[in-house]
């Protein structure tokens, strides 16, 4: 019996060294250690026939042999594992194949732009509010100091959907709506779609996106407007950008200004992008007109404020070098993927 055990152990040890893969190793393990019909159990089946006094000794030897068998199998397993690693290490992969694109979604370039604007305003303590696109003449015009039959309404050719009901021509109606909803001081950013009855071409859209900044508090001055807008333009277009304030006319602000930013393409020398002017028109701004403050229930003697409105398409066109406003709403896959 002892001899059989030793021989089996030796044989397994020898065969284990010859094993070439996991499958052969498994076969060997099963043939030797399998519960039913394994060779070790066959040998051990003879245990019952042994005299009682020999059983303990044989049991000890059997365990030794089993341990030896398991050790050689384990050794073989490690050898195979090491060999597998070596084999894997020997492989060479071609990293110069073209990348496979990930299945990512994307945010529209206008939203990306708005989010940059929004994070600037939020960093300055402004809250972001949104309002309706179908507006009343009152909020769109009268509250903004543009009375009926006033020629200033021409500048904002208006779509109507009903009597005294229109598609807002600017985000400014939210100035008065917000002032009526919240007591002073107030600092808000209003993004949204606005509508102008304007033919669609490379530079004009009858629907576009605008945002409106409004800050009203005691002691707010035109100088604060300049500081804020200058910082915003730097944040959006780069630290080197200069801003210029030109007098302009809006019914709802006074003094009013047109804000220009120095052209990033030509550094102000004049080029095609800026039409040779060296400056790009950014948007309108000004000190909130007392009439508007009163419409919002604020006392213009106590509170002053500024407002600033800007087209989001305009920012993206300048920042991202997009030369046709129609591209934003055509949703061509090639366009969307460029800004994904």
């Amino acid at each position, binding site marked *: 019996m002892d001899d059989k055990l030793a021989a089996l152990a030796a044989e397994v040890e020898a065969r284990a060294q010859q094993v070439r893969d996991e499958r052969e190793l498994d076969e060997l393990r099963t043939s030797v250690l399998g519960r039913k019909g394994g060779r070790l159990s066959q040998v051990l089946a003879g245990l019952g026939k042994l005299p009682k006094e020999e059983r303990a000794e044989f049991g000890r030897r059997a365990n030794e042999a089993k341990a030896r068998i398991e050790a050689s199998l384990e050794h073989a397993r490690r050898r195979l594992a090491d060999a597998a690693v070596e084999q894997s290490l020997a492989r060479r992969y071609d990293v110069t194949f073209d990348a496979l694109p990930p299945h990512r979604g*994307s*945010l529209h370039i206008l939203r990306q732009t708005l989010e940059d604007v929004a994070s600037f305003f939020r960093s*300055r303590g402004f809250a972001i509010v*949104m309002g309706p696109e179908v507006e009343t003449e009152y909020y769109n015009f009268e509250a903004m100091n543009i009375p009926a*039959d006033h020629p200033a309404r021409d500048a904002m050719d208006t779509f109507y*959907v009903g009597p005294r009901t229109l598609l807002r021509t600017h985000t400014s109606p939210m100035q008065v709506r917000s002032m009526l909803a919240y007591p002073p001081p107030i600092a808000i950013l209003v993004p949204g779609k606005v509508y102008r009855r304007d033919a669609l071409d490379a530079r004009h859209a009858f629907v576009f996106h605008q945002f409106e900044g409004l800050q009203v508090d005691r002691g707010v001055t035109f100088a604060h407007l300049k500081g804020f807008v200058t910082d915003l333009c730097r944040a959006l277009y780069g630290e080197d950008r200069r801003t210029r304030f030109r007098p302009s006319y809006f019914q709802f602000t006074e003094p009013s200004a047109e804000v220009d930013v120095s052209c990033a393409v030509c550094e102000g020398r004049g080029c095609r992008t800026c039409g040779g002017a060296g400056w790009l028109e950014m948007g309108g701004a000004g000190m909130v007109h007392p009439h508007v403050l009163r419409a919002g229930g604020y006392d213009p003697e106590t509170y002053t404020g500024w407002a600033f409105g800007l087209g989001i398409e305009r920012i993206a066109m300048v920042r991202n070098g997009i030369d046709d406003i129609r591209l934003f709403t055509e949703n061509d896959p090639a366009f969307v993927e460029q800004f994904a």
Partner: protein
Amino acid sequence: MRLPVSWLRDFVATDATAETIADVLTQRGLAVDAIHPQPTPERIVVGKVESLARHPQADRLLVAAVDVGGERLQIVTGATNVAEGNKVPIALPGAVVFERAASGARDGAAARRPTRQIAPTVLRGVESRGMMCSPDELALPGDYDDGIFIMDDEAPVGAPFWQAARFGDAVLEVDVPSNRADCLSVIGVAREVAAGLQAPFSPPTPGPGTGDRPCPVRVEIEDPDICRRLLGQCFFGLAGRRSPTWMVLRLAAAGMRSLNFAVDVSNFVQLETGQPLHFYDLAALRGGAIVARAAREGETVVTLDGVERRLDPGTPVIADGAGPVGLAGIMGGAASGVTATTRDIFVESPNFVGPRIRRASLALGLRTEGALRHEKDLPLELPEVGRRRAAQLLMAAGAVPSQVVDAGERPGPQRRVQLRARRVNAVLGTSYAVTQMKDTLRALAFEPAGEDDLEVGVPYWRRDVREEVDLIEEIARGIGYDTIPEARIVAQPQRIDESLYDQESILVRAFAALGYHEIVSLPLQGSKTVAAWERSGLPFWPSRVEIVNPLSEDHRFLRPSLLPALLATAATWYGRRGDGVRLFEVGHIFRRLDDAPQVEHRPEAGVFADNGVVEWPSLAGMCVVEEEPQNGAPGAGGAGDGTADGAAGANTRSDGSFDRRLLELKGELESVLHDMGLTELSAQPRERTYFHPGASGNIKTASATVAKFGRLHPRLARAFELPETTYAFSLLLENIPRHKPVKRFVPLPRFPATRRDIAVVVDESLPAGSLTDTIRHAGIPHLESVRAFDEYRGPQVGSGKKSIALTMVLRRADGTLTDEEANATVRAVVTLLQERFAAALREAT
């Protein structure tokens, strides 16, 4: 407004270049949009055509003898509009002139046309030593009659042309803000230029310009709501006058074509002073009076443009004894118009009520120069200014004036506005001195008085300056916005509801993370959208908010849904990119309120319903997924036994109800909604016209529907050339929380879970959700969760039946679940389903 710089120089003594002047104007709020330089070629002189004779060798050529001052030149010309005695511009040998333009190419392009040099030449045997110039060859701005440019008879022979014409500087395009009616005039703009350059300013100062003869026409104002003041005067003996060259060129540069002397004068005065005038042929006025009144029922007038207009009652008109002779302030009548042969004229210099003119002008679609000025409510002083200037010009041409007739209001006292100097600096953030403020105001003819609390007299032409803040703007503008410092102020903390924006931000990120691309489409849609949709045979949304004044058929209503644009976009993407298209959009959608009376006005949730229109934000999306083969690979449709029959990708299986794509979409929506704090969700089938009737549903919370989703109706898919495996969804944002909730930590399970799967056979019509809902709410011990994940139909379960596969997670909180306990739980489930649905256990593992 187009402004020849030479005209400005008539009133401002400055050497500043056109560019500098443009800069000054821009800095003062009159943006110069373009500068059109005027080339002034040398060696162009005024020549007088002494004689004209036929060319001996050529029928179509003439030989002219031209006096160019001390010298007589023989010039051969093909011109047909020149007569003996005419004065014309002559290009002397050596002059460089421009090629004639192709018809229609004018102005800015003129200066860039090719040039040629004039040299002595022999034409068909006759020597020619110079050339008579057409406007094109001198690159003159504007439109002219064909042929040689004929100058006025007073032009000095031999003088350089540009000097004689008092012309030759650039033309500026000035963008006049709508409040600055005073700057719709050369004088008004010149005043700004003079103030900006601190240069002397000398506007024309015509005398009274009146005569002794009584005016044969009386003026009356019948309706003071139309006309405030009506000033008139006759001029006699005018026929045959040629307009001065300088006037012709100034008008042309400003965009007005020279017609005849009288009309030119009226246009010239309007441009120069800003006061619109109308000249009548005195002989054509009937009844010895004109009256400003509202049109009466049935009245018509043929306007100068030759159009017969039926007048709505109330339209402002000027009428003579026999009826309307013109649209007040907008356009004169053809019958009483002035021509080159008119001898005696009646000049009307009116002041109308702006809004009345504006309404009529918009209604008639006649946005004339006169209307654009009158609608701004011009000052009552201006009619006299305009009349005097016209009188000066007409009398200079030999016309004899009558007395002046004048009806209506007279100018009131000067407006005075209070101005607190400290308020100026408080609004601007500046530290301007009071003297600086006063000087700035004086430069624009304001009259400030006082030391700190100022009282400021406002010049009559500045009707836009009414209150303190208007003066503050004048000061800021005058001193220069660039002198205002930059300052920073921190916004006070506020409690403003930003949740609409927050919700949108969170959700767009979520869908982008799920692989969807955001698109932005036009909310104005029209027949194209409807036609594309209805090609499917399915109805478009009937409730549409129509635009009263649409730009075009294709943009005549507000979108009732985001789906049509998504579909059209998906079709493009699918055509270009194949499947895998995933798109979404966030935006407002619109319905008529009478079609949705149940909608509440909830502005805090973004729902607006107070304008007769319901408007609310929506998020919708769609995905076009891979079409699977009819006999797909085994197992491709799911993990359960249900797909083992080989009809994988259950969405194409004719008899199954398991659509893996639909459920993946549902899973995406649920995961997004879970993130927003909605955990108790259920889905129910709900038919919608645009979805496959058997593959569409709602996701609901206990109280509201929060999402719609489904497979696109196959007809709709086909209409857009999309595969049947196109899915769409929309979120009802108003019913979804606008903030992500803070998630509470739940202690991690300490004991392992056991998974058990069963398959039960039930009636074919029973939704899987009924099984799982019932199980979830039965309170079965140790059952942590259950999911229905597949189905099987076929011979093994019999007709009218189906097998639903359920997977359950079982766990004890206080110890490891024993096999016995697990079996008991499964038995409890099976018993429950047997009792409730007569379900038969088919398999358990």
